[in-house]
């Protein structure tokens, strides 16, 4: 499993990364968590609003900070 957090480095993006990493740790999973700050890579992934999160190449959220429950749902559903 590969999780990507997209964000140029604003406070909301850091918060998103923190939430994702926290949930991953809670669930005891060990996926690859990557932070992407490059605008071109963001555009190629179809990200229009930051912060955004994708799991295995599928965008799950864009433009707001996810709640822990949402992240947990994405991770346990797949």
């Amino acid at each position, binding site marked *: 499993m590969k999780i990507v957090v*997209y*964000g*140029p*480095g*604003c406070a*909301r*993006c850091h918060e998103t990364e923190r939430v994702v990493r926290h949930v991953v740790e809670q669930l005891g999973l060990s996926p690859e968590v990557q932070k992407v700050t490059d*605008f*071109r890579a*963001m*555009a*190629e*992934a*179809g*990200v*229009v*609003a*930051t912060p*955004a999160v994708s799991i295995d190449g599928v*965008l*799950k*959220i*864009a*433009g*707001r*900070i996810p709640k822990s429950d949402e992240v947990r749902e994405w991770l346990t559903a797949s």
Partner: protein
Amino acid sequence: MLWVGLYAVLQRLAVWLTYGAAGLERGTRLASAVEFFVFEAPKVLLLLVLVVFGVGIVRSFFTPERTRRVLAGRSESVGNVLAALLGIVTPFCSCSAVPLFIGFVTAGVPLGVTFSFLVSAPMVNEVALVLLFGLFGWKVAAIYASTGVLIAVVSGWTIGRLRLERYVEDWVFTTRPAGAGVVEAPLDWATRIEAGWQAMSEIVSKVWPYVLAGIAVGAAIHGYVPENFMASIMGKSAWWSVPLAVVIGIPMYSNAAGIIPVVQALLGKGAALGTVLAFMMAVIGLSLPETIILRRVLKPTLIAVFVGVVGTGILIVGYLFNVLF
């Protein structure tokens, strides 16, 4: 309920605190400044909480993806107007400006239409709008909103006519975005209210120091700067005051909530409405951090045209209002 009760007793509470509790003498400069601060600070903060919560809920109905779908393939004039209006309600922060720009342009939204959105999104600010309404009444608020939209439409249209596509960084047009962005299930009301709540705690916790600083400056001007002092340097007769206000305002960056108490104090001391409006729009509509981040996708020429065209628009609005009012 608590909100309504608090709001209703503010004026009396402020008078009591200033003259009763602190024992300041009526008519002194200090007392006048303190009363201004003690009354305005909670009033503005209360308004802010209510408005940001409401706007947070409204914004949960709009996403950048949806706005992009509406704008893609529009003809220019209609597109400019739509983009300027959607810029008001679509959630947007300056750190999202670049991905949004690329997302719009690669989806076939014309460059000028994209700029109409990018101008109106920060300029017609919901916090500013309601603070203006609360402090000056609906006329000033309406003037601000309609001229903001007008500037966004005309600037975007102008940039579109100038055919500046070659001044966008080349890699932007060769980027092939995957998919249509995120597809979220429709939100239920509990989530929308929570979104409003989240927006409120986030924005209010971020802007309250600016608001208080702004009101403190306002209070100092209110108490200590003589009546009509501003009239000579920011009044109608001083033709150079509008361009000066714009030039000073562009590099300045303040949250809309922080600049309005200053605006209020300046107006109260005889500054002309157009000059003050131009200053405010330059501060919140054009900011140094945003132009720096846009440099990643725009060549310097286009940045300069962007700042120039929008600045000119603000200038014209400033003069117009000084003539009309």
